[in-house]
């Protein structure tokens, strides 16, 4: 182990053994706080009942964050205060792209707030180009010698960000950390990691950016929120990014705990396509008799004459019946089904992108991250509880992504018109109102 692996990190080590490193900067920190009834984990913040997590000889552990190594009273954290020991290259930003004037304005606001270490939210519609908008802020932070991280709850988002960031900051080594790959930890000025990995950091980052904050498992996970706060230096800045902020973030904006910048228009300057709702009472029962709503078939036919599309269904079990029903209607059209555990998932997505399929029937896995240009979007059973309002906004946001076809159809079929569907429509309308105000001066 090298000492720099402890910069801004906490490493678990048994109290009984002697730590392999010796340095005056090394600090031994407690792992748990023990009260009369509870124990509180200082890594993930989870409070556990003492009697549940007691081991022999009055020792305790945290059952919550155990996959990162068990935190117990038998261990200590070893930590070195973040020294910002970086060699800063001469050329910082190697990105040569252009921002639209709207993007540039937002980008400047973000950069300014990052410099003041604010807590802020970038609320940008799907397809706004938010990654490019934070480059200026990151570049300025790096030139100040700050340590910066971009975290996302989803591994696929991290994997997608990494090459883009590496190209934009080509002179910086970037540490990419996630649980799927056993890459050795490396001390770097710029880090891309899953939000789960933040649990290992302690007062490390001068600026931390959390992308797709609304997505699973981050949004409702107290341990990850706790880890986020711990990973930032006490005076550090925090930037959340999302197209679909949940209740908690909106509450923080209203309480003025979070500054917000909106980007209600997509990079091509067009509004979001609004969701159109169709009632399809008992659609699943009809589906089992291989019948789909007549309007759905009509809309699909119209789309498929010129474009491709995605058809979302709530559950894996809905895929096959939908496929069979549509096979009867469209015997000559190439399409298939895909879901999270599908072994050919990546292949099918690739084929769809290459135009080998005219449409995919999918569960909500393709709700974000994956972009197909010029498509229409259909959802059968949009009122099912698997679709949160933010998932529905993300799904609707798959349409109209390209400059060549900035509009697109978004049609939902529902058993009944519920709160989540209405909330999704409301969020789209809200951003479009803001967007219209911008375009009309």
């Amino acid at each position, binding site marked *: 182990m090298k000492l720099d692996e402890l910069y801004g990190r906490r490493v678990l080590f048994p109290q009984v053994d002697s730590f392999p490193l010796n340095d005056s900067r090394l600090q031994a920190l407690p792992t748990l706080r023990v009260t009369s009834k509870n124990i509180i984990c200082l890594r993930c913040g989870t409070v556990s009942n003492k009697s549940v*997590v007691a081991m022999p000889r009055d020792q305790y552990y945290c*059952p919550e964050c155990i996959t990162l190594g068990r935190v117990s009273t*038998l261990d200590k954290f070893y930590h070195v205060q973040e020294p910002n020991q970086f060699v800063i290259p001469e050329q910082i930003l190697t990105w040569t792209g252009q921002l639209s004037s709207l993007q540039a304005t937002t980008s400047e606001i973000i950069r300014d707030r990052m410099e003041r270490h604010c807590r802020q939210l970038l609320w940008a519609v799907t397809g706004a180009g938010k990654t490019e908008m934070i480059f200026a802020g990151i570049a300025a932070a790096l030139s100040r010698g700050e340590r910066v991280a971009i975290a996302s709850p989803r591994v696929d988002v991290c994997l997608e960000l990494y090459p883009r960031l590496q190209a934009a900051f080509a002179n910086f080594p970037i540490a990419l950390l996630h649980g799927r790959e056993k890459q050795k930890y490396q001390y770097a000025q710029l880090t891309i990691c899953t939000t789960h990995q933040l649990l290992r950091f302690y007062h490390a980052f001068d600026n931390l950016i959390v992308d797709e904050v609304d997505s699973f498992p981050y949004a409702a996970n107290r341990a990850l929120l706790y880890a986020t706060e711990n990973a930032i230096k006490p005076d550090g800045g925090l930037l959340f990014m999302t197209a679909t902020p949940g209740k908690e973030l909106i509450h923080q904006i209203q309480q003025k705990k979070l500054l917000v910048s909106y980007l209600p228009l997509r990079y091509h300057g067009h509004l979001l396509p609004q969701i159109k709702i169709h009632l399809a009472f008992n659609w699943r029962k009809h589906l089992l008799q291989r019948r789909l709503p007549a309007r759905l078939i009509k809309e699909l036919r119209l789309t498929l004459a010129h474009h491709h599309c995605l058809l979302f269904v709530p559950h894996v079990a809905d895929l096959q019946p939908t496929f069979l029903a549509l096979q009867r209607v469209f015997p000559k059209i190439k399409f298939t089904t895909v879901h999270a555990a599908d072994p050919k998932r990546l292949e099918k997505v690739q084929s769809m992108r290459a135009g080998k399929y005219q449409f995919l029937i999918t569960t909500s896995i393709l709700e974000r991250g994956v972009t197909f240009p010029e498509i229409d979007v259909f959802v059968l059973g949009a009122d099912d509880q698997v679709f949160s309002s933010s998932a529905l906004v993300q799904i609707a946001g798959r349409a109209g992504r390209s400059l060549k076809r900035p509009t697109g159809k978004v049609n939902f079929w529902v058993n009944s018109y519920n709160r989540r569907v209405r909330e999704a429509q409301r969020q789209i309308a809200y951003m479009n109102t803001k967007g219209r105000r911008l375009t009309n001066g």
Partner: protein
Amino acid sequence: MQEYKFQGQYHLRKVFQEDLRRAVSNLEYDLLVPIPVTDHTMKTRGFNQVTGLLEGLHYTELLVHKNKQKEAQSKKDRHSRLQTKQPFTIKQSSDLYGKTVLLVDDIYTTGRTLYHAAALLHEVGCNRVQSLSLAR
């Protein structure tokens, strides 16, 4: 079992207790004796995975590790495990003459651990030594 023993999720002991209790109740013995862990394991893992499973049953911690072994059994390879000399000693040997002992281990690895423990118990006069391990 991996999660329980090596990740140290002590609360998972409850998952295995029922199975073990049923197995134990089918056997006759005078003394129920768990295989011990080293002092170092107690100070890092925090518990003996065997006694954790025996919770609620009447057992006697008769065996202890002789000297402070640095390495835990599970970290050695099969060959070096087979080479090991008697690792245990008896805490108190009174009243053991003619007794039937049921030895309990969590995972049956080479059988060497159980062999050494049984040999020692025979030496001090136990009549019969049976053994039970939860998983192989």
